[in-house]
C-alpha cells in the first residue's frame, strides 16, 4: 500500500529533478544556437542527474513497502501539496529515466543539427516532467507533471521530426491529452469526495467508494493510462509518433513515456479502485493479449524498420499489462521489470535504427542487407539487442516474460470455472508472443544484416563510432545484468508490490484504513516537524 514510510533528510528526489531543470535554464542562457557547448552541457547535466538519482537508489530501503525519501510541503491553497517520494514500484522507473536520458542526449549529438539548444532544453524539461510524474504522491501534482510531459515531447516530434512530423505530433498530443481530461475530472471528483481539503494519494486511498463509482473512475483513469501505454485499440498514435520523432525522442518515448501508462495502472487505478480493477481485470487482460498478437502481426508486416520496432512496443507492453492485471506477486514484479526491460531493449533498438538512419537516411528494410559484413560491431550489437527483445534466457527480456506468464498461469490455474478456462486461454495465447516476437525480429535482422550486399552505397558504411558504442554498450551491459542477476532489481520491488496486492486482495475498506492508520499518525507527526527543506537549508547555512 502506498503509505508513507520515511521522510527525506536530504531532498534527493527534488535535487534529481532540480538538476535538469537548472540545466535547462542554464542552457537557455548560453548564447548561440548550434554550439557544441549546448550538447556538452546538456549531457553533463543529465549525467549529474543520474549521479544524484543514485543517491535515491542507495538510500532506498528495499524492506519497506510505502513511499520513502518523502518530501512534503504546502503548495497550493486548496489542499494540493508538493509531496514526492519513491517506493518499489516507482524506483526502477525513476532510475530508468535518469539512466536513459543522458544516453538519449549523447546519441543525439550528431543527429540534431538545427535548433540544438532548444532541443536539449526540451529533453531536460522532459526529464523533469517524467521524474515528477513518477514521484508525485499528490494527485494534482501528478496530473500537472503528467500533462507537462506532453509539451516537450510534442515539440521534439513536431520540430525535430521527419516529414510528417506535424501530423504525428498533433496526433500524439490530441490522443494523450483527450485521454487525460477525464482523469482530471476523476481526480477532482475524488478531491471533493475526500472533503475538498486534499489531493494526497493517501487520502484518496481511504475513500469508501461504491462499485459504480469505482467503475466510472476506473474507466476515466484507465482511458488516460490505456492511451499512454498504448493498449489496443488506442495505439495508432504510436507508430506515427515513433516514425516521425528523432531518435532521441523515440528512445525516451518508448523507453519511459509509455511506461507512465502502465505505471498509472499499478500506482493509481488498481489500488484506488480495487473492486473495479478486479471486475475489469479479465477484459483488460484480453485487450493485453490481443495487443501482443496484433502488435506482432503488424510488426511483421512492416517494411519500415522503425515502424516495426514501434509496433513491437504494442506487443511488449501487452505483456506488461497482462502481468499487471494477473495481479499475482510474480506477475506484477515481472511486469515492473519488463517495463524497465522494454525501456532498455527498445531504447537500444531505436538507437540502432538511428545509427543506420544517420548513415543512409532511410528506414526502409529493403535499403539494407548484408551490412554485417561492413558493420561488424553494429551487427553484434543488433543481434544482442534483438535477443533481448525476443526474451532469450540470459538477457533481461526473458526474466520479465517468464514471471509475467508464470504468474498469469498461476492466477488462472488457482481460479475456478470460467475464469480458469479464460485465464489459461489467455496465457497460452500470450505465450505465442514468444514465437511471434522471434518471427518478426529475426526476419528483420536477416534482411538488414545478412545476405549479400545488394546496394552499393552500403559497401562503405562506417561501423559504430566510439560515441555510439558507448551509448549502446551501456544498454547492453544492462541487458545482461538484468538477465543474469535480476534479483538485484526485483528485490527492490517485492515489498511494495506485496503491500499493493495485499491491499487489493483484501478488498475491504476497513483493512485498507487500518493499514493507513499507522501511516497517518506518522504522517501527522512528520507534517508537524520542520520542513526538510528548512533543515537542509540550515545545514547548508551552518
Amino acid at each position: 500500500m502506498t503509505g508513507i514510510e520515511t521522510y527525506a533528510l536530504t531532498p534527493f528526489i527534488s535535487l534529481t529533478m532540480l538538476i535538469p531543470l537548472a540545466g535547462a535554464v542554464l542552457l537557455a542562457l548560453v548564447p548561440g544556437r548550434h554550439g557544441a557547448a549546448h550538447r556538452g552541457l546538456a549531457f553533463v547535466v543529465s549525467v549529474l542527474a543520474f549521479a544524484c538519482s543514485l543517491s535515491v537508489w542507495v538510500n532506498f530501503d528495499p524492506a519497506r513497502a510505502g513511499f520513502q525519501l518523502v518530501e512534503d510541503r504546502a503548495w497550493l491553497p486548496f489542499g494540493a501539496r508538493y509531496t514526492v517520494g519513491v517506493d518499489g514500484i516507482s524506483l526502477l522507473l525513476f532510475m530508468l529515466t535518469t539512466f536513459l536520458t543522458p544516453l538519449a542526449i549523447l546519441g543525439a549529438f550528431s543527429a540534431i543539427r538545427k535548433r540544438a539548444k532548444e532541443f536539449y532544453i526540451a529533453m531536460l524539461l522532459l526529464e523533469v516532467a517524467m521524474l515528477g510524474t513518477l514521484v508525485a504522491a499528490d494527485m494534482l501534482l501528478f496530473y500537472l507533471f503528467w500533462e507537462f510531459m506532453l509539451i516537450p515531447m510534442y515539440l521534439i516530434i513536431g520540430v525535430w521530426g521527419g516529414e510528417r512530423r506535424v501530423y504525428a505530433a498533433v496526433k500524439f498530443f490530441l490522443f494523450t491529452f483527450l485521454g487525460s481530461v477525464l482523469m482530471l475530472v476523476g481526480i477532482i471528483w475524488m478531491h471533493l469526495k475526500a472533503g475538498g481539503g486534499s489531493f494526497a494519494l493517501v487520502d484518496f486511498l481511504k475513500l469508501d467508494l461504491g462499485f459504480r463509482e469505482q467503475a466510472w473512475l476506473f474507466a476515466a483513469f484507465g482511458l488516460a493510462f490505456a492511451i499512454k501505454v498504448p493498449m489496443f485499440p488506442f495505439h495508432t498514435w504510436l507508430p506515427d509518433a515513433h516514425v516521425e520523432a528523432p531518435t532521441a525522442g523515440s528512445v525516451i518515448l518508448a523507453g519511459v513515456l509509455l511506461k507512465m501508462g502502465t505505471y498509472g495502472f499499478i500506482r493509481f487505478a488498481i489500488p484506488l479502485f480495487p473492486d473495479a480493477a478486479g471486475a475489469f481485470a479479465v477484459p483488460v487482460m484480453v485487450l493485453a493479449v490481443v495487443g501482443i498478437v496484433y502488435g506482432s502481426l503488424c510488426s511483421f508486416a512492416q517494411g519500415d524498420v522503425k515502424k516495426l520496432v514501434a509496433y513491437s512496443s504494442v506487443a511488449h507492453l501487452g505483456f506488461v499489462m497482462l502481468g499487471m492485471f494477473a495481479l499475482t506477486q510474480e506477475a506484477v514484479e515481472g511486469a515492473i521489470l519488463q517495463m524497465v526491460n522494454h525501456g532498455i531493449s527498445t531504447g537500444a533498438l531505436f538507437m540502432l535504427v538511428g545509427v543506420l538512419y544517420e548513415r543512409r537516411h532511410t528506414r526502409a528494410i529493403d535499403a539494407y542487407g548484408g551490412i554485417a559484413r561492413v558493420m561488424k560491431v553494429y551487427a553484434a550489437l543488433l543481434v544482442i539487442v534483438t535477443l533481448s527483445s525476443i526474451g532469450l534466457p540470459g538477457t533481461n527480456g526473458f526474466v520479465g516474460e517468464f514471471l509475467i506468464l508464470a504468474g498469469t498461469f498461476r492466477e488462472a490455474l488457482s481460479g475456478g470455472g470460467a475464469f480458469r478456462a479464460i485465464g489459461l486461454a489467455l496465457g497460452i495465447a500470450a505465450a505465442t508472443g514468444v514465437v511471434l516476437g522471434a518471427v518478426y525480429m529475426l526476419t528483420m535482422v536477416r534482411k538488414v544484416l545478412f545476405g549479400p550486399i545488394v546496394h552499393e552505397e552500403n559497401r562503405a558504411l562506417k561501423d559504430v563510432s566510439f560515441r555510439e558504442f558507448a551509448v549502446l554498450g551501456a544498454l547492453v551491459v544492462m541487458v545482461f545484468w538484468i538477465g543474469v542477476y535480476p534479483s538485484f532489481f526485483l528485490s527492490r520491488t517485492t515489498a511494495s508490490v506485496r503491500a499493493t496486492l495485499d491491499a487489493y486482495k483484501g478488498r475491504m475498506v476497513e483493512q485498507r484504513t487500518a493499514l493507513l492508520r499507522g501511516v497517518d499518525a506518522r504522517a501527522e507527526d512528520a507534517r508537524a516537524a520542520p520542513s526538510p527543506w528548512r533543515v537542509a537549508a540550515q545545514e547548508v547555512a551552518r
Partner: protein
Amino acid sequence: MHALVRDNVGTLLWVVVFAPLAGAIVNGILGPRLKRGTVSLVGVGAPVVAFVASALATWGLAGREAVSTTLFTWIQAGPIRVDLSLWLDPLSAVMILIVTGIGSLIHLYSTGYMHGDPSYSRYFSHLNLFLFAMLLLVLGKSLLLLFVGWEGVGLCSYLLIGFWFDDMAKAVAGKKAFLVNRIGDFGFLLGMFVLVFWMEGSLDVPALRDAVDMGGGHFVPGGTGVMLVTLALFLGATGKSAQIPLHVWLPDAMAGPTPVSALIHAATMVTAGVYMIARLNFLFALAPTTMAIVALTGAATALFAASIGLVQNDIKKVLAYSTVSQLGYMVLGAGVGAFGAGVFHLMTHAFFKACLFLGAGSVIHAMAGCQDIRLMGGLGKRMPWTRATFLVSTLAIAGVPLLSGFFSKDEILYKTLALQPASGPVAGWIGPLCFAMALAAALLTATYMFRLYFLTFSGELRSHHAHPHESPASMTIPLVVLAAGAALAGYVGLPIEHLNFWEHWLHPVFEDGAARFVSTGSHALEYGLMGVSTVVACGGIALAWALWRGPLTHVPAKAAAAAGGFYRLVCDRYRIDELYDAIAIRPFQALARVTHRWLDAFGIDAVLVNGPPRAVGWIGSIVRVAANGDVQAYAAALFVGLAVLLWLVIP
C-alpha cells in the same frame, strides 16, 4: 587424491561450465586482434579444460547419487525461486563427458577445417559459447536452467548455421532453425508454467522427482493434467530433436560449417530433446498416453527420415536425414520406457555420427567444397584415413554385430517389443507397429549408408575438376579417435546382465521411470532379435552393394522411373516444407498484411481515429488549427483550461 576430487566436485562443475564461456568471451571480444595460433589455443583449450574437469568430476561422483552446487539465486518473485545451481548425477555425468570429449575433438578438427576462414575467431567464439550453453543445459538443476541452455544452444545453432551469412540461403536456414525450435520451446514453456504452479514455485528436477514419488496432488498416474504437461514438454523435444512434425529445420541446418553439423546437429544439441525426456523419465512415465505418442513419433521419424536418406545426393543431406532417423530411435527408446537404451544410443550415435560428419567434412575439404556424391567416387584410394574411419562408423550405424551401433540399436528394438506400461498397454498394436517401423528403418539405414559409402569411396572419381587429397593430421586424428569410439563404445552396455555397466551406472536415474514399466521379454527373444538385426544389417549392406557397386547398378534408375510420382515425392522430402509453406507460412504472412493494412491502417486509424475529424468539419478545422504548429496557442489553451478547472475546485 580421490578424496580431494570428491570434495571439490562442485568447483569442478563450475570449471566445466565456465571454461568454454571464458573461451567464447576472449575470442569473441579480442579474437579479431589475436594471432590465429592464440585463437586456436583458447578455442581448443577451453573444451579440453572442460573435458578434464568433467572426467575428474565424474570420478569424484562415483558412488554417490548426485552432487549439487549453487552460485546464487537467479530469479525470486512471489512463490517462484530458481537458483543458479548445477547438478551432477550419473546421467549428466555421461552427458558432460560426451559433450566435452567429442566437443574437444571437433574443436581440434576445426582448426584444420576452418583454417583459411576470415572469421576464424568468430567461429571459435560461437563454438565455445555453444559448449557453454550445452553444458548448462545438461547440468542445470532446475528445469528453467535447462531451458536457459536449451535456448542458448538454439542461439548458437542459429549463429553457426548462418555462419557464412553472405549467402542468403544460409542465413535463411539459420532463421528457420531458430523459429521452428521456438515453436517447440513454446510447448516447453507451457509445460513449465503448469509445473511451476504445481510445484509451488520450484522447478528443481530433484524436487520434482520427490513430488512425483510422493504421488497425489496433480501427479496421478494416467492423469489428464500430467498427460497434457508431458505432451507440451514433448513438443519442445520434437523441436530440438528434429522429430516429426518439427524435423524440417535439421536438413537445412547443414548450411553451417561441417564441424558444426557434427557437433551441434549430430552429436550433442539435437539429442537435448531425448535428454530432457530421460531427465524427466519419472514424469513422462506417469503418462502412458504421452509415452505411446512419444514412441510412435520416434518410430515414424526413424522410418520416414531413413526413406528420404536413401534418395539424397548431397553427402551432408544423407547424414542429416540419417541423424533425424537415429534421433527417432532414441526417442522411440525413451517412449517405450527404455530410457537407458535411448541414452545409450545417444552416446554411441555421438561417436559414429560425429565421425561420419567429420569424415564428410574431410571429403568436402578434399573436393574443394563439392558435396554431391554423384561427382565423387574412388576417394578411398586418395584418402585412406578418412575412408577407414568412415567405414568403421558406417558399419557401426548400419548395426553390424560387435560394433557400437549394434548393441544400442538392438536394445531399443528389443525393448520396444518387450516393455509395457505397468498399468497395461495404451493399445496392443503400438509396440509391434513401432517395432516394425524401426526394423524397416534399420534395413534402410544399412542400405543408404552403404550407398553413401560406395558412391563416395569406391569405384572411380567421376568429377574431372577435383584433386582430392588426404586431410591434415589435425583433422584425421579426431577421426581416428571417434572411429575407435564408434567401434568400441558399445561394450559399456553389453546385453549381459552383470556386464552391463551402462544400465548399472544409470540405474539410480531411471529407476523411478523404469519401475512403471514391466518387461514381457526373455533372453530367447533378445538373442533372437539380435539374429534378426544381423540379418537385416547384412541384407541392407548387400543390397547397397548390389545396387550401387555390384551387378545391379542399372536398377536404381529403373526403380525410380517405375515409382514415378512417389519417387519424386520422396526426393522432395515428402514436400513437407511446401505443405508448411501453404498451410502456415503464407497464411501467416497474409494475416499479418491484412491485419496491418486493413484492420490497423484502414479500420482503426483511418476510420475510427481520423474518420470522425474528417467527416465532421468542425473537428477537422480544430485539427487544422492545431496542425499549423502554433505551439504557444496550444500551451496557452492547456493552461487556461487548467486554470479554469482549478478555479472551479477552489472552495
